[in-house]
């Protein structure tokens, strides 16, 4: 029966081709415009580690005091968005969480053992061994380093897939050496392609930038007195030399912890607040504890990961889709009323209102699928244009992925069927007697 109904829907689709084309175009343009904006919005607001987002917490410790957070003038009581080396070390050494990793971005001049290979500047993330299991970082070969390596400042490195390919080609490079600022490092792991967007673990720099080229032990980088490549904010100067910098209240590190359960959040926050109280008692600070512990979603929301113009654009695009659908509903009504005679005949031959209503919705589904095809192409073109013309953040996320294609189809089907409800219902109410005599 469904094949027959599809055949009838196809016949109806082919009738009044100008009206049908207008309907498809209206849906296609509406879907294309809205999906282009929504896809950018979705990519920006998406949680790249949703499956454990509620157990991963970003730590903020107020080492500056009330009103001193220049980076967040709208919320003066909000602590700085990064932590100092001193505060990061306190958390790392206390080991109060299941996993913990302080981190910052830095970089090296990289050479390989191959004399023909020209040295390249590469970004690196200095972090702890917990980084990899904490963020479920996928490995193509080898693994991350151990807690022992953290302690011993081991000269080991994990390469990104892209850097490994650039330096070693397709070869598994685990066990090979690279030279970072002329110091030999052993490759112990190579990642699969891993580009979380937004780059949730460091939202204080470019939120949608690529992951780093490599990952090296934090202890080595600090031991080598290397500077961060990311944001660095100092309230009272950066101290004398590297030791002074480490002892200062300059904020330049991101600090993440993984707790066993979301419910442990208050316990860990108490631990942070107790640390701050101790600091106050010992005269290091003079203010009440003002710390934050936010999970990934909360942190992304706090940072305001989606620019307001993207949000406005998404809302407007949904409004535009609505206008297109109202037009489509009008066109559908016109088309179904032009078929009054046929609908009346079908009623006379034994079709119930429910049968005609179902057939009407199936007819609309074909229009929706055609609209989705047009909408899909327009979405692709829209995203292409955004990649060419948008700013850096939008360029990084304006891509058509399989999920977006599914969304195009789902949005087209749902919205078209909604638009079809009234015209189809009206058509099913057509009085057969009048139509048959008129005909």
């Amino acid at each position, binding site marked *: *029966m469904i094949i027959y109904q599809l055949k009838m829907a196809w016949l109806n689709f082919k009738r009044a081709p100008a009206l049908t084309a207008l309907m498809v175009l209206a849906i296609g343009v509406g879907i294309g415009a809205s999906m282009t904006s929504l896809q950018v919005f979705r990519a920006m607001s998406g949680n790249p580690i949703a499956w454990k987002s509620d157990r991963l917490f970003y730590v903020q410790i107020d080492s500056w005091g009330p009103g001193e957070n220049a980076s967040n003038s709208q919320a003066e009581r909000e602590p700085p968005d990064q932590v100092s080396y001193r505060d990061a070390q306190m958390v790392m050494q206390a080991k109060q969480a299941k996993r913990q990793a302080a981190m910052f971005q830095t970089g090296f001049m990289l050479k390989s053992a191959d004399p023909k290979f020209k040295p390249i500047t590469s970004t690196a993330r200095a972090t702890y061994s917990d980084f990899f299991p904490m963020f479920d970082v996928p490995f193509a070969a080898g693994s991350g380093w151990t807690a022992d390596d953290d302690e011993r400042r081991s000269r080991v490195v994990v390469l990104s897939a892209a850097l490994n390919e650039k330096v070693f080609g397709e070869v598994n490079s685990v066990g090979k050496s690279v030279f970072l600022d002329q110091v030999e490092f052993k490759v112990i792991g190579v990642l699969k392609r891993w580009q979380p967007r937004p780059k949730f673990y460091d939202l204080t720099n470019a939120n949608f930038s690529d992951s780093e080229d490599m990952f090296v032990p934090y202890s080595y980088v600090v031991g080598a007195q290397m500077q961060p490549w990311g944001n660095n904010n100092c309230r009272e100067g950066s101290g004398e030399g590297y030791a002074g910098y480490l002892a200062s209240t300059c904020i330049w590190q991101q600090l993440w912890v993984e707790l066993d359960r979301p419910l442990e959040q208050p316990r860990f926050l108490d631990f942070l607040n107790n640390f701050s109280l101790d600091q106050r008692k010992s005269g290091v600070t003079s203010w009440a504890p003002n710390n934050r512990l936010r999970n990934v979603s909360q942190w992304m929301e706090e940072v305001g990961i989606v620019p307001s113009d993207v949000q406005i654009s998404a809302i407007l695009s949904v409004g535009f889709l609505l206008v297109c659908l109202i037009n489509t509903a009008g066109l559908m009504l016109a088309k179904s009323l032009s078929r009054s005679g046929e609908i009346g005949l*079908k*009623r006379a*031959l034994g079709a119930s*209102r429910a049968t005609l209503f179902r057939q009407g919705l199936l007819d609309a589904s074909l229009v929706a699928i055609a609209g989705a095809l047009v909408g899909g192409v327009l979405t692709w073109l829209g995203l292409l244009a955004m990649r060419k013309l948008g700013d850096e953040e939008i360029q990084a996320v304006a891509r058509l992925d399989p999920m977006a294609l599914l969304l195009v189809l789902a949005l087209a089907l749902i919205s078209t069927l909604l638009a079809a409800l009234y015209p189809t219902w009206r058509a099913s109410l057509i009085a057969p007697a009048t139509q048959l005599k008129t*005909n």
Partner: protein
Amino acid sequence: MLKMQKLSKIYRTHQIETHALREFSLTVNEGEFVAVTGPSGSGKTTFLNVAGLLEEFEGGSYQLDGHDVRGLNDNQRSKLRNEKIGFIFQSFNLIPDLSLFDNVDLPLRYRRMPTSERQKRITDALTRVGLGSRMQHYPSELSGGQQQRAAIARALAGSPRFLLADEPTGNLDSQMARGVMELLEEINASGTTIIMVTHDPDLARRAQRNVHVLDGQVSDGLQLVAAA
């Protein structure tokens, strides 16, 4: 058997109430060929629409082949219409972008008949009206008479107890009309009850019984008595 007793049908607009049928009583027995005549606006077509369950009525009673149709919901009325009644219209009402085969198939689809049975019924019906060799033709490829024959095949395919024909020859020339009339007589001879609305006295005379409708009522006292 089709039995209407004191049936009334009123059309209402904001300002006017039109009594299309009033105290309308008629019984049509199985196997009859009844011609319904009367001037324009007398209620002939309204009677046919109510008889064919295309319109509801206000008062009185109507029994169709033993079913009291008052109070039936849309699904029940549609099912009854599909199984018991075949329609023939003045303007044929074939769907232009369906072949004759698919046009005849339409009412059978609503009955959810198995494919093999549908195919047999369609072939038989089209063959019976002389269009067995034109099953894949489209209505626009046929003459008016052939189109009406195809419409008759569509009405016959479901083996209805009643054929309701509204001016079935109104759009045909006299030769084609004669052919269609002969076909209807042949169908009636094989046991199908036919009720035909017509303006044409010659055609009406060929029916077994004439019912004259005037101002929404059966006007011929003899017919009423005969029907009762």
